[in-house]
């Protein structure tokens, strides 16, 4: 398992989870021996498909589920057995769970009133929270009178009002449409950073995780497959599953031929790979070579040299506007995907490099484009 990079300053650990396990019905391990630490001010994302255990883990942090094993420490204090209403943790729920019978104001004030905060302080705090999310003029409205984006901001204000030590976000942008999501995402990160609260975020959307989080844990079947900074998880996946889950990837199966400290070569049925860095493996080992579509270049001229290229036939052209994805069928029958940016007008009609269906093309890539997957 990769260790987290100290990409920013070394921070004090706020949340520490040790060997957390949740077993349902005596058999199903929803969360399997998970340990993690989250530093103060960090945004930590739990990323995975449905049923990977990310929500169960979040619900254990909030106190809605009791762990079968393991402990949860917040700022050094063991909170494993505290009920949710006694934890200095607040959560922004998926689809928000705003109280429908209360106004925006009362929703935000709900938590403060439970603490017995004096009236004038409550209104001061609610006002500043509503200012923060720019919803002061909607204070008297009921949640159903607001748009999705506004509801999301109310939910954020409500969960931040009590100044929690830890903020949990459950699919924070899941209920918004794509266009709104992009702007809201930035807004959300800005507010979180302004407040300086530590966050644990759950999402199935890799883009959301990568743009918002400082570190990502990729979850699968209840355990962490990889933990790391977004670029690390994307560029240096440690397994086929991670490579496959995060973004698009072409994986070539092959056998290590040369294993040197500064490079390795891998023989695959389709081509020979020359990887410009060493790996923790040995010659003769079966490996997968992961190659992202955007790192592949296409040309009609046959490349020289014996490494890092292959020939294919264009079978599919998928136009996305910004870029186009070409499906190439190789001699072995394997289909790989290559992404080309549409950087001129006429490249948008499927004529990038004059390419069209049925064309023979050569795909090539640099020796720093690949990741060798040993598991």
């Amino acid at each position, binding site marked *: 398992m990769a260790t987290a990079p100290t990409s920013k300053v070394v921070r004090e650990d706020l949340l520490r989870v040790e060997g957390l396990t949740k077993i349902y019905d005596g058999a199903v391990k929803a969360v399997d021996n998970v340990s993690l630490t989250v530093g103060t001010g960090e945004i930590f994302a739990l990323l995975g498909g449905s049923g990977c255990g990310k929500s169960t883990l979040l619900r254990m942090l*909030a*106190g*809605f589920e009791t762990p079968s094993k393991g402990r949860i420490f917040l700022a050094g204090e063991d909170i494993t057995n505290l*009920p*949710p*209403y*006694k934890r200095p*943790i*607040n*959560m922004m*729920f*998926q*689809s928000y*769970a*705003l*109280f*429908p*019978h209360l106004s925006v104001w009362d929703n935000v004030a*709900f*938590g403060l009133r*439970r*603490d017995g905060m004096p009236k004038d302080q409550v209104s001061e705090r609610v006002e500043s929270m509503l200012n923060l999310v720019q919803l002061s003029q909607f204070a008297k409205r*009921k949640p*159903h*009178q607001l748009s999705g984006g506004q509801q999301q901001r109310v939910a954020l204000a*409500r*969960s931040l009002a*009590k100044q929690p030590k830890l903020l949990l976000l459950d699919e924070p942008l899941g209920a918004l449409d794509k266009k709104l999501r992009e702007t809201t995402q930035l807004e959300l990160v800005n507010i979180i950073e302004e407040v300086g609260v530590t966050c644990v975020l759950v999402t199935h959307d890799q883009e959301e995780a990568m743009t918002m989080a400082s570190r990502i844990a990729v979850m699968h079947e209840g355990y962490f497959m990889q933990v790391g900074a977004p670029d690390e998880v994307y560029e240096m996946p440690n397994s086929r599953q991670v490579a496959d889950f995060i973004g698009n990837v072409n994986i070539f199966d092959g056998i290590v031929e040369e294993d040197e400290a500064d490079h390795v070569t891998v023989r695959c049925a389709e081509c020979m790979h020359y990887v410009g860095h060493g790996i923790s493996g040995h010659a003769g080992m079966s490996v997968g070579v992961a190659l992202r579509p955007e790192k592949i270049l296409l040309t009609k001229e046959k490349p020289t040299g014996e490494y890092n290229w292959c020939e294919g036939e264009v079978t599919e052209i998928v136009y996305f506007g910004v870029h186009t994805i070409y499906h190439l069928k190789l001699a072995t029958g394997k289909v790989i995907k290559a992404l080309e940016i549409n950087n001129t007008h006429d490249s948008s009609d499927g004529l990038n490099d004059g390419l069209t269906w049925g064309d023979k093309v050569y795909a090539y890539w640099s020796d720093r484009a690949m990741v060798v997957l040993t598991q």
Partner: protein
Amino acid sequence: MNMISNYLRSLLSGRHLVIGVPYVWFVMLALVPLLIVLKISLSEMEATSVSNMVDWTHGWPTLKLNFSSYLFLTTDALYYQTYISSLKYALMTTAICLVIGYPFAYFMARSARHIQPTLLMLIMLPFWTSFLLRIYAWKTLLVNNGVINNILMSLGVIHEPIAMMNTPVSLMIGMVYSYLPFMILPLYANLSKLDIRYLEAAADLGASPFKVFCLITVPLSKAGIIAGSMLVFIPAVGEYVIPELLGGPDTLMIGRVLWDEFFSNNDWPVASAVAVVMILLIMLPMAIYNKYQSEQMAVKV
């Protein structure tokens, strides 16, 4: 011509028929009888029948409205007291049903999905036996030498039988017993739809389970509480069978007065007036509530 035939055809279309049948049913069996009762209450009793409302003796129709029955209701304190006590018993029944029924419905809605149908069936089970039979059964339980007193005496808990029968106690037991399902069913329907995330969100924001219940669960189940209370309160006000069988001389209820006026005194106009006033007593609060509700809705939108 074409328009008229089109109109007639549209009247006979499936949609109109489907809506029309219950409408006709309602007009024939609720509205018309109600108007007849209203008419009788404004008539005078003549030897064996009530007077006609429209008088033709002068050769032209004159409308004869006779308010003497309504005036009569104000002269005798019995009616006034009966209305008050009917409302009192109906309110008490509603309140007790709510207090017993709410936790019942709550735990039904929170229980495992696969046992909910069974619990629901247990609620309905009493309806499989005749209503009269069940009220009679209570009589054998509650009388002085009945099951309850006999057991308590043989256990030595009491030495003389407790007089429960023909008292407000026996009346309330019978009323609550009979109307409890009508409270539970709408509450259950409402509470089972309650989104658990609201409760979690409240707990997350620091509300103790008791506060969550008071501040979230109860307000969000308001519609169920109102529906259940209406279903209990309205029939309870006019209840006749239970006070007749389980009530006593002090448990005045309007249903029994109605019976007496109709069948003992044979004074149909007064009996009808009693009924009309009762309907107004029930309908006025409902109308006010409905108006208030729709105003609230208008504010919302």
